[in-house]
């Protein structure tokens, strides 16, 4: 009997990331952070930007819902970003046309919320007016650090952020400055026009049936706006900590606009020429219609973070779920969850990063260290069998289908692996209703390889 030889994975030629840690858990337990996620429509979503960063950077958990993998969605126009390289201050750069679209969308949202056209225009005009760049330097930094503690003209602003988050937990697309009911200096401009919005917002929270409506509208824009469907945060943990400043702070964008030139008819042809050349400049404005990208975790990833590492809490509605409950719920949502989870857990406990194998027709793809560093090495199919080594297979394969699968796998420079999870035949349903059943389960890995009869003669290949 020959064993399959381990082929070390190929390193990617260009690696743009630096490796932080295999798991979002600090060894030693001193700086232990528990992230939060929610179940929305049978999906596990993480909304907090810092949690997202933590979970993705340390272990490559999840996928940005608007990105290919790492949540890097930005409304910034890449061609403009290169064009204005010098001026870039960590703000997205967009065209004027695009900005107008955002304004239109914000307008329709406000209209749906019941504002009359006059108020809508007023609110938006105020919100979208150009801002001074020097002022923004402070705000630009705000994006990167937890600035809720900073003193300065922002203080009241950010205090409000914290306050309003704990109170209502609801946010409207417009800045959190609007969510106040007693602060006169609500926003920098001190515009009381925001009050109506605030009132509407908190009312929505009180009326539970309205919440559904808000959810509906939220679904329409696909988590694009912080509408009323956001569940109330677990405030205990957050009260002493800094609340996500990224979410409640307004997003500043640079809009490329044409300088307004007074077109005066001139006799001099040179002047006419000048007027034809429109100068472009960047104007900083607030984005009235923010698009938030969330991190979506697969059921296996989510369960692993909760059960194996204890660094994630998953909420359904208001209540955080226990491990047993999650095991039950996930098994209902995905019929073979237990099998795929056990395989996932096994490979994670070996220090490899399993990602979903949908693109290759299998269950998992195994990466060494993480997708940015090495190409995936193995494409895995997981099956649960009893200790007579038989079972009803999730993917019964004929040799024909196996050879097709092997071909596509090998074409992508991966190896096809079958992962059998062997459970004792006398394991009851009750035993399997808890993840502790894994302690009695054994794992058998097999590598599928094609033997080429003619080549074997010339090369003394590993047989």
């Amino acid at each position: 009997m020959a064993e399959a030889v381990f082929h070390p994975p190929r390193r990617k030629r260009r690696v743009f990331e630096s490796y932080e840690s295999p798991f979002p858990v600090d060894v030693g337990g001193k700086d232990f952070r528990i992230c939060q996620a929610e179940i929305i429509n049978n999906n596990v979503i993480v909304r907090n930007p810092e949690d997202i960063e933590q979970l993705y950077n340390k272990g490559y958990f999840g996928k940005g819902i608007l990105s290919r993998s790492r949540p890097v969605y930005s409304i910034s126009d890449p061609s403009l970003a290169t064009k204005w390289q010098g001026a870039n201050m960590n703000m997205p750069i967009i065209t004027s046309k695009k900005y107008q679209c955002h304004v239109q969308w914000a307008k329709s949202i406000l209209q749906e919320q019941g504002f009359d056209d006059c108020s809508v225009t007023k609110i938006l005009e105020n919100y979208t007016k150009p801002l001074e760049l020097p002022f923004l330097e402070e705000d630009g930094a705000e994006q990167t650090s937890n600035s809720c503690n900073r003193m300065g003209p922002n203080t009241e602003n950010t205090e409000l952020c914290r306050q309003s988050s704990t109170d209502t937990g609801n946010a409207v697309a417009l800045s959190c400055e609007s969510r106040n009911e007693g602060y006169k200096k609500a926003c920098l401009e001190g515009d009381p026009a925001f009050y109506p919005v605030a009132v509407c917002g908190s009312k929505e929270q009180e009326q539970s049936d309205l919440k559904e409506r808000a959810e509906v509208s939220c679904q329409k824009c696909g988590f694009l706006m912080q509408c009323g469907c956001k569940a109330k945060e677990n405030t205990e943990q957050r009260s002493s900590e800094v609340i996500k400043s990224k979410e409640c702070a307004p997003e500043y964008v640079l809009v490329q606009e044409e300088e307004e030139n007074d077109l005066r008819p001139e006799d001099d042809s040179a002047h006419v020429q000048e007027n034809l050349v429109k100068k472009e400049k960047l104007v900083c404005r607030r984005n009235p219609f923010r698009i938030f990208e969330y991190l979506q975790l697969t059921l296996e990833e989510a369960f692993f973070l909760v059960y194996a590492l204890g660094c994630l809490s998953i909420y359904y509605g208001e209540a955080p779920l226990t491990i047993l409950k999650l095991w039950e719920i996930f098994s209902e949502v995905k019929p073979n969850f237990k099998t795929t989870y056990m395989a996932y857990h096994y490979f994670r406990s070996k220090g490899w990063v399993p990602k979903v194998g949908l693109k290759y027709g299998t269950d998992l793809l195994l990466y060494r260290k993480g997708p940015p560093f090495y190409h995936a090495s193995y494409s895995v199919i997981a099956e649960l069998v009893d200790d007579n080594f038989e079972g009803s297979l999730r993917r019964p394969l004929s040799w024909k289908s196996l050879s097709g699968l092997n071909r596509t796998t090998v074409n992508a420079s991966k190896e096809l692996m079958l992962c059998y999870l062997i459970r004792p035949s006398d394991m009851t349903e009750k035993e399997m209703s808890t993840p502790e059943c894994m302690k009695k389960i054994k794992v058998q890995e097999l590598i599928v390889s094609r033997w080429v009869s003619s080549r074997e003669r010339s090369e003394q290949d590993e047989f």
Partner: protein
Amino acid sequence: GQKDFIPDGSAEQAEKLRRCREEQWQLLSEERVERLRSLVKAEWKPGQGIVELQSPAGKFWHTMGFTERGKQCLLPEEALYLLECGSVQLFYRDLPLSIQEAYEILLCQEAMSLPHYQVFSHLKQLGYIVLRFDPSTVLSPYERQLNLESHCQSSGKHHRKRRRSSSPRSHEKKHKVSEDLPEAEETSKKAGDDCQDSSCLPTDEKHLSEQPKESDAGSGKGESNPVPLDTGQKDSLSPSWSRVGDHEESSAGTHASRWDFSTIILPNVAPDQPCTHLPSPDNGLLPENVPGREVNATYWCARINQKQEKLSRKEREQRERESRYKTSVNADREVRRCSNWQEYKALLAQRSRQRVWRRPPHLWDQAVTPLLRPDEATSQAALLQQISVLQPSHILDGASRLQEDPESMKIDFNVYQADAVAKFKKTNPGKPYVRMCVRSFDEQIPSLRALKQVTYQSGDVPVVFALVDHGEIAFYSLKEFKLPVDVNH
């Protein structure tokens, strides 16, 4: 130019196909010319299902055929193959058989159907030596352990390696020895603390290798610690560390122990503290008729080569890799200050009380809690160990008890490499390069059960599945694998 992939209904394509077919037909219909004298005459014996040679065999006799009752004979597949090669002429009832007739008549048996023959022929044409599989020629794991086959082949070069206790057992049947294996599996787990998961041999074999050693050792060696298998590193990923934690049987009883831990001192046996004076052990600890005595090993130490071990580059690299994630528990100063178990346990308890992380009740005040205790995870390796709850399994685990199954998949051929032709001996072919199972392309892939049966049956020779699809043959293998642990990032 480019291949035509699908029929396009054009006249051009139809004409091309017609011409191709015509060429092929012409080729096939060409009459094969052979010298009548060099054609070996052979007769098909349907009663015995074999072919008997009527004239002396040619060069093919080196790798094919067998002798029965003084006559040279061929198996049906061999005869058919030689017929196709133009080396023999097959007769039945005094008339020569055409190739078509030969196919029809010779391949209507259980053992040798058309797909089997196609595989046979394919491999023969590539130069391999293909023999039918005979289960009784497979050495049991125990016999292999004794290097029995190499003993048979060479002229007793391995005589010296044979254990004293093994000679009467060398002829023992396979199934008798296999009964020992399940027991061996159990006990070897305890002994296998240092066993690396990526080792090639299953643990039961390793244990067997110790038994003879111990009987050999006699009085000289006092210790019976198993030597850990060092299969060598193949690459930069490290094999898993010793899973001591998993192997500890959780002995339920928490009865009061008869040891007073406060008085038991942990001896320091570090390399810088030569432990040369060993006091006499407590008589209560020794078996009845075994006397204990004090030992002063200074004399012996002086005679041991105490030169600094020079590590090879590979060993040095391995050590350096391990130092990145492995830490000795004694590296901790506070641990060194503990002079007995009680103090050490108190230190651990104190450390666990200093938990900094908060434990949310919905995770921790429940029947099932998270696996990881962050304060106990002092390194990445320790973290991985805490979350490793699934046990590894080897392809041969439990395979021996599946052997009684009459439905088990059969191995069809032993295949030997073409390069081995010169040294090949029909009477003692030795270990094949690979063994073949012939199956149909439309069949389901073997269950894990069937795979274990076939792997076990094959001994230590790899198994390949030959899949026949209307004349096209593809070969696949399903090999045992253990993903190495990746801790070095």
